[in-house]
């Protein structure tokens, strides 16, 4: 119990903060923050597996998040039959060509000695393949994008349940991580950071500009939801009855029947949004708990001990017969898959896919701050980091506004400095997060909840 005391205290303070937001701002905002905290927590769990367990620095979190989001579109959106009929065959041929390219390259890599001839062969395959794809896909893409461009203009998805896409998101991210890992894992730590960041940028720019795939920057809106819709709730009798029972005290104060109805309507609208968010919160909580159990088990298993050994001394671990390269690749894939799941969860929660919003600041650096602040190598710490930093990120503007008005209270309303400061309140979040990171790195480099090594 004593061992877990600091964890319990830290989590209680965090929950208290969110409840305070619920009391002072509104429960809907509190739940939105809570849901996003949990999505961030899943991302930090993934990053923590890579950085905390294995010491691999992955600045490409943005790319895996975006791929997870793409999975939601490709799995849950209903297919667009016209688009498939005009361009489906060509696009499928291109997919076939890519697969042939990959396998023939693999065959050459395996069966021909390292030589100039091999390099030329591979380069030849890639160039011929790209030209073929350009010729075949070019007209098809134009036709697909011409199909009702305001609403569709893309191939659509498979029309499957949206929850399924969380798993697919993980698989997509794992696939990308396999490629990236094969290419980049041999690099030194800081090179790896830059390389992963740039590869993630490439992935995002492909998602952004290939409109036939997921409408690119035109966004996909109105995605399926695993939770009920607010409109349906507001008209269903059982829900209204529930709200009536819940708020009977408030309703009894009403003087007339019409006034009572007005209050009830308002309460139902508020409650419906809270209810939907609660549904999401429940689902996310299940994911977080499952992942937490798995990662905890893994951390204290022989495998986890091996990973720590590799992290702390690669040469020694490799001398003991551990395959460092293979384990690094494995853990890289694992962590990225978890980030992919988080990306899918996020898009499901928002109900829309906006490729333009994937920016390194928000989806790589903030996540890294979460990992560092929470505690590297400790899963409870990682989750806490996700909560704390996301909370600060969202609440920074109101907090900043409060302090600005406190310090400039003596100035008149028309003072230029005051107006300027109030207008720039949203940017204090960068300041808050940055200073938080610097302070943690200086005075508590192991994070709020440090890594704990259980002595056997």
């Amino acid at each position: 119990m004593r061992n877990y005391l600091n964890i319990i205290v830290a989590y209680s303070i965090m929950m208290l903060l969110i409840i305070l937001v619920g009391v002072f701002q509104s429960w809907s905002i509190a739940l939105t923050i809570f849901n996003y905290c949990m999505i961030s927590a899943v991302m930090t769990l993934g990053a923590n597996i890579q950085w905390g367990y294995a010491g691999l620095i992955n600045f490409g979190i943005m790319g895996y998040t975006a791929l997870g989001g793409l999975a939601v579109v490709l799995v849950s959106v209903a297919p667009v039959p016209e688009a498939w009929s005009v361009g489906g065959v060509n696009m499928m041929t291109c997919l076939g060509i890519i697969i042939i390219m990959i396998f023939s390259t693999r065959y050459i890599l395996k069966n021909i000695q390292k030589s100039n001839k091999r390099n030329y062969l591979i380069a030849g395959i890639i160039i011929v393949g790209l030209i073929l794809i350009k010729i075949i896909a070019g007209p098809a893409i134009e036709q697909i994008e011409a199909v009702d461009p305001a609403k569709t203009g893309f191939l659509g998805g498979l029309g499957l349940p949206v929850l399924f896409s969380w798993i697919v998101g993980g698989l997509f991210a794992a696939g990308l991580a396999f490629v990236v890992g094969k290419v980049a894992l041999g690099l030194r730590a800081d090179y790896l950071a830059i390389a992963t960041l740039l590869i993630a940028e490439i992935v995002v720019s492909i998602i952004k500009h290939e409109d036939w795939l997921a409408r690119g920057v035109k966004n996909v809106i109105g995605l399926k939801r695993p939770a009920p819709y607010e409109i349906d709730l507001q008209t269903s009798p059982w829900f209204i009855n529930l709200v009536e029972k819940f708020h009977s005290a408030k309703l009894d104060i009403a003087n007339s029947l019409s006034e009572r109805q007005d209050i009830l309507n308002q309460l139902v609208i508020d409650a419906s949004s809270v209810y939907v968010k609660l549904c999401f919160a429940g689902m996310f909580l299940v994911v977080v708990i499952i992942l937490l159990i798995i990662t905890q088990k893994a951390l204290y298993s022989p495998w986890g001990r091996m990973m720590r050994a590799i992290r702390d001394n690669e040469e020694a671990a490799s001398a003991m017969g551990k395959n460092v390269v293979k384990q690094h690749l494995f853990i890289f894939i694992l962590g990225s898959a978890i980030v992919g799941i988080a990306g899918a969860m996020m898009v499901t929660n928002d109900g829309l896919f906006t490729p333009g919003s994937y920016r390194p600041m928000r989806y790589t650096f903030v996540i890294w701050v979460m990992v560092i602040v929470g505690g590297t190598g400790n899963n409870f710490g990682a989750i806490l980091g996700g909560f704390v930093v996301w909370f600060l990120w969202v609440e920074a503007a109101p907090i900043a506004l409060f302090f600005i008005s406190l310090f400039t209270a003596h100035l008149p309303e028309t003072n230029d400095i005051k107006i300027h400061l109030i207008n720039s309140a949203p940017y204090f979040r960068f300041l808050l997060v940055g200073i938080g990171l610097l302070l943690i790195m200086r005075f508590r480099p192991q994070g709020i909840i440090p890594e704990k090594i259980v002595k056997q």
Partner: protein
Amino acid sequence: MDLINAVIVLLNYTIIPALTYGSQLALGAIFVTLVYGILRFANFATGDMMSFGTMFAVLLTYYFQSIGINFGFLPTALLTIPFAIFMMVLYMLLIDQTVFKYYRIKKSPPVQLAMVSVGVMFVTQAVIRIIIGPTDRRFLDGEKFILKATEFKEMTGLAEGLTIKSTQMITIVVTIIVVAIMFWFLNKTKTGTSMRAYSDNEDLALLSGIDPKKVVLITWIIAGILATIGGILYGLDKSYRPFVYFNNMLPIFAAAIVGGIGNPYGAFFGGYVIAFAEIFLTYAYKRFLVYILPESLEPNSLMQLLSTDYKFAISFSILVIVLIFRPSGIFEGKRI
């Protein structure tokens, strides 16, 4: 005649813009490489530091304009460079004393310093946005063009016009001057030699009596000069927007690594490699081919290899290819 027209088209739409963009990247890349070679960490605050210096130039330009100082046909921003550099170096030294020094003395691993620089990035970004805001700002004044397309056509009687913007000329000239002075400094002066020694082997350099504090100080001063000038040139040529500067960090990193990180010559050429690749691969060659091919072969399509949307992706792909085949860069890296 057609051949000359074709060359003019290439010059106008690819070579001159690529030289300009390459110069801007090169200055940033040398900044990255110096910090990496001497202070030994990948500085993720690069773009925002450049932005910070440029911010002062923008503000001072507005101030100078309001009190009626200008630089004739040259942009007023050039006058503000010394002041902006001064502020930038002060800021960098402040950051170094409060943040980086602690880790340097503790001899922390480079990864930790890189993470710290992420913190600096956040703070710098916040300071910039609080002071000047995130909006797009143009601060170019003076003559816009050195050579206009119509003038060129009249002068030569060619069908194609050649346009040279004054910012393009200024960028290239200033870059050449700055880089030449810097290489002279690194190679010929005693301080420069001691910096190179420090970069090659810290322990040996310390043994031979080189003062590490002085080396670090000089490095930050040079870094401040490069960052500010690079940032101002980019801002004059395009426009000043904090978010764009942050994004520019990525091609700058690509340039530094492609050239071999730690090697200033490599970084200098790396900037041009990236810029030329980006522009040559996304340029639509139709107009060029129309001139050099016989009429029967004239292309119907735009003859564009990749759409301009993938501009950034190209530089990153080059970087990935370089990292796979020559991890130390085209020019051997980690040397100064």
